[in-house]
């Protein structure tokens, strides 16, 4: 595995060097990246199947007394698989998509660099290597966001991203500092050997949730994510939304399940609450969006929430020594990590194809693309059903397993958890149902109906090198949906590593049947469901066409007798979301709708206006920003002083610090 990793990283590095040359070697950059991704993904898959011991290596890099420690265990291998498998297909897509970039020099070198950063985070085995890789990942992705720097909103999105990324890394630095303890050993092996407890562990927990959570996009630290992810070129959006958020979750899992000792039960309470709020608010934001890529980015927030709910249950069960149930919850969470990486990459690639074909991201100016872009539409439809957690695709399987964990939540002894579990279940159910609403809106407005603009009417299907990766992702979504045990078997070594002694997860299952907790409790078979529906539908088609009627006539739409061919009369994304806006938006977003009708005799058009307020922005960020600028104003007086006063200030500061030292000893 280590040799394959070094070959893969070498290929990525070669791609980075090639990328510096710009547009001429565009194909080489993406081909080398795809090759590198495939190399590492295959090696990682073999590690998981073989379930061997962890491989370690120390490189003479980094801090002189530390070196750079690398370690590939089952958890690293699983995330390496997710990252590099998706990266391979996305790189193939980049071959054609990349040629549409206005300034390829701003994308090509940083694309492989971004992948190198993410790979190194997953194999780092000391805090220093971890943080350097983490920052490489952040900075490379920030540079990729800036590829479209000529648009004003990109620049503000990039600034916000930079601020939030620094905040997150800052939190992680402190977390590792506390984990290293007084001995100051930054190797993960030392942290594992002497796990911290009590108050220190609580601080590490909070900092890890903040640091990794801000990168993953948990509410309320998500504000940077939708603008930044949607501003980047679409294949980079797929990398950021589909994969980088998973690397962030890897950081969270590594710290909470591996580097700290057994968790106290209240960690579960906090993580469950954060996850449920993230899932529900993420999907509500998404329903209100009309920008295709921004909507998808908000759905990333929702899905991260679903994974976090799974992790919260794993923590709560583990704290109460219910290891079998903890294993079930962890399987659900990790399965959703994989699934989300697949369908979110697929959907962003689809959005990129739409953008290439129409130069539009605004859903209100699209429509009818199923006729002009049938293959993109079909794969996008599969991704939409999968992300809406509907059978027979993969999103449903992981949410179903999460629900199974929720039902067993009543076995948790703590009262707070007992009250929390059904409410988390209700919020997750609501989030899943709203996701379906949102994707009926997306598919219905973008791909169905009639084109709402000339660009949409004249769209052309994209080339095969763009369709093939989307088809690949769609195939994986279907395969994992109908035969989920293939993937769950691969996950077994990860569970054994993180929850030793939990026994085999989902022991009663076979290839065909998914049985999480015993056959009399619940069972599901994706393959039989899809086969039965297919057989019944085929029989119906045959019988009806044979015995009843197979005549068909094309004629104008009925529309209650008044068909209007103007596309203005079509239902738009805004009108589709109106019922949800009325039901949920008025309380959560303070949604206001205003209709301006011209007075009789005036000739200008009537207009309709919707205002929404972002609760995270209004409630947290705006007050913080106001407070910071207020303090800065007050401190401004210190800036223009005489030398004498400066010296007095420094002397006072020194005395104050010495006093603190004296008192604390």
């Amino acid at each position, binding site marked *: 595995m280590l040799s394959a990793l070094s070959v893969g990283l070498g290929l990525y590095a070669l791609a980075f060097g090639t990328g510096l040359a710009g547009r001429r070697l565009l194909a080489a950059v993406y081909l080398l990246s795809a090759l590198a991704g495939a190399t590492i993904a295959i090696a990682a898959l073999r590690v998981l199947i073989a379930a061997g011991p962890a491989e370690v290596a120390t490189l003479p890099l980094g801090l002189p007394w530390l070196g750079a420690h690398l370690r590939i265990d089952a958890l690293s291998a699983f995330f390496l698989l997710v990252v590099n498998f998706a990266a391979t297909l996305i790189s193939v897509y980049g071959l054609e998509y990349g040629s549409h970039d206005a300034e390829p020099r701003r994308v090509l070198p940083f694309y492989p660099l971004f992948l190198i950063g993410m790979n190194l985070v997953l194999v780092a085995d000391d805090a220093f290597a971890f943080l350097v890789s983490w920052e490489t990942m952040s900075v490379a992705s920030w540079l990729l966001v800036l590829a479209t720097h000529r648009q004003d909103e990109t620049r503000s999105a990039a600034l916000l991203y930079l601020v939030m990324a620094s905040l997150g890394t800052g939190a992680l630095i402190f977390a590792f500092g506390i984990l290293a303890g007084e001995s100051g050993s930054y190797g993960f092996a030392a942290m594992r050997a002497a796990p911290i407890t009590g108050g220190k562990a609580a601080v590490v927990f909070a900092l890890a949730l903040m640091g990794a959570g801000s990168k993953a996009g948990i509410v309320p630290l998500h504000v940077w994510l939708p603008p930044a992810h949607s501003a980047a070129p679409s294949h980079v959006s797929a990398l950021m939304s589909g994969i980088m958020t998973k690397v962030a979750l890897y950081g969270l899992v590594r710290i909470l399940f591996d580097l700290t000792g057994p968790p106290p039960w209240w960690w579960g309470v906090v993580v469950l609450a954060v996850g449920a709020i993230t899932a529900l608010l993420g999907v509500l934001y998404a329903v209100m969006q009309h920008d295709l890529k921004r909507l998808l980015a908000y759905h990333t927030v929702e899905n991260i929430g679903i994974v976090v709910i799974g992790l919260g249950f794993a923590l709560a069960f583990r704290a109460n020594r219910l290891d079998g149930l903890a294993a079930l919850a962890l399987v659900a969470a990790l399965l959703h990590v994989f699934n989300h990486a697949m369908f979110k990459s697929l959907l962003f690639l689809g959005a990129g194809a739409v953008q290439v074909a129409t130069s539009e991201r605004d859903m209100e100016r699209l429509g009818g693309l199923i006729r002009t872009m049938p293959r993109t539409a079909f794969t996008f439809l599969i991704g939409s059903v999968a992300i809406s957690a509907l059978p027979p695709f993969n999103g449903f399987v992981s949410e179903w397993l999460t629900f199974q964990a*929720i039902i067993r939540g*009543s076995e948790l002894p703590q009262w707070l958890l007992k009250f929390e579990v059904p409410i988390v279940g209700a919020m997750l159910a609501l989030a899943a149902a709203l996701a379906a*609403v949102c994707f009926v809106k997306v598919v219905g407005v973008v791909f169905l109906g009639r084109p709402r603009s000339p660009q949409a009417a004249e769209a052309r299907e994209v080339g095969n090198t763009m369709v093939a990766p989307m088809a690949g992702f769609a195939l994986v979504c279907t395969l994992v949906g109908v035969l989920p045990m293939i993937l769950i078997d691969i996950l077994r070594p990860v569970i054994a590593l993180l929850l030793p002694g939990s026994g085999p997860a989902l022991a009663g299952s076979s290839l065909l049947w998914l049985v999480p907790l015993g056959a009399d409790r619940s069972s599901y078979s994706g393959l039989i469901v899809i086969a039965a*529906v297919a057989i019944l539908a085929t029989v119906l088609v045959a019988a009806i066409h044979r015995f009843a009627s197979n005549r068909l006539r*094309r004629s104008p739409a009925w529309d209650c007798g008044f068909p209007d061919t103007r596309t203005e009369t079509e239902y738009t994304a805004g009108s589709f979301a109106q019922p949800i806006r009325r039901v949920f938006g008025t309380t959560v977003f303070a949604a206001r709708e205003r209709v301006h009708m011209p007075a009789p005799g005036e000739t200008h058009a009537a207009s309709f206006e919707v205002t929404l307020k972002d609760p995270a922005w209004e409630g947290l960020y705006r007050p913080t920003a106001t407070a910071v600028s207020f303090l800065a104003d007050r401190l401004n007086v210190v800036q223009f002083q005489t030398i004498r006063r400066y010296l007095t200030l420094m002397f006072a500061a020194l005395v104050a610090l010495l006093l603190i030292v004296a008192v604390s000893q």
Partner: protein
Amino acid sequence: MTTSLLDLVQLILVLALAPLLTGIVRKVKARLLGRRGPTLIQPYRDLLRLLRKEVVLAPSASWLFRVIPYTTFAAIWLAAAIVPTFTTGLMTSRIADLIALVALLGSARFGLALAGMDVGTSFGGIGSSREMMIASLAEPAMLMVTFTVALLVRSTSLPHISEFMLTHAVGIRISLLLGLISLAMVAIAENARIPVDNPATHLELTMVHEAMVLEYSGRHLALIEAASMVKLLLYLSLIVAMFLPWGMGIELPLGWAALGIGLGAYAAKLMVGAVLLGVFETAIAKMRVFRVAEFLGGAFLLGILAAIFLYVSEGL
């Protein structure tokens, strides 16, 4: 009888009885309004008539519009076959548990809502949008009822829930009562019945489900109408299987006597359900569309309350 044969019986039974059930509801409503009403077999005749007619398709309709009626009908038919009706010993019931059943119906609805958007008319859009709004509240309510029952029975597998209710002295529990009310409210909303929607209306602005399928005709419309009928039967069967499973055959292999009792009890329960639905629909007025959110929000909260009561009382 062997199990696979029983599975076949179940598959045909739900399909054969569904139009009759709708016929009974219509008849009850007509008699309560002082009309004689059409005969009980009128729904069968309507379906056959539609099946024989040609399909009139709008020029902007895509392949999705023509595929959806078949997949939707097949999914709902399969879902109906999964719910235990006269016996708990069917293989079909194990393909999907209650949560997966809700999701399967969700897939069917997803497809139908997309079909409503396909032609690009404003009525299709308004129908899809409102149907999905109703579903976004009904589906979580349904899942909360599922949690409640699953907590008591320690299973989400439907035949297991029925067997547990039959063989254990469950007693009268406030949680189950709340769950039953919540499920009934969900069933009314999901089947587009009064007061949420009106299956008989053709007044444009009051339609939800009917507006969504407005552009369908001929055999496609027949399938969609039949799917609605099967779905009504499914929800009645679900209430029966979860809360009132008396008479179901649980001993395998199922003898002729047990089969007879099971089928008879099922038929009687459907009859009672149809009459109750007819009376309820006649007695109540349809509500404005945005009041539906309050109605289903109520169902959702009842579901949460039921689950919390049980989570807490289980811990005592």
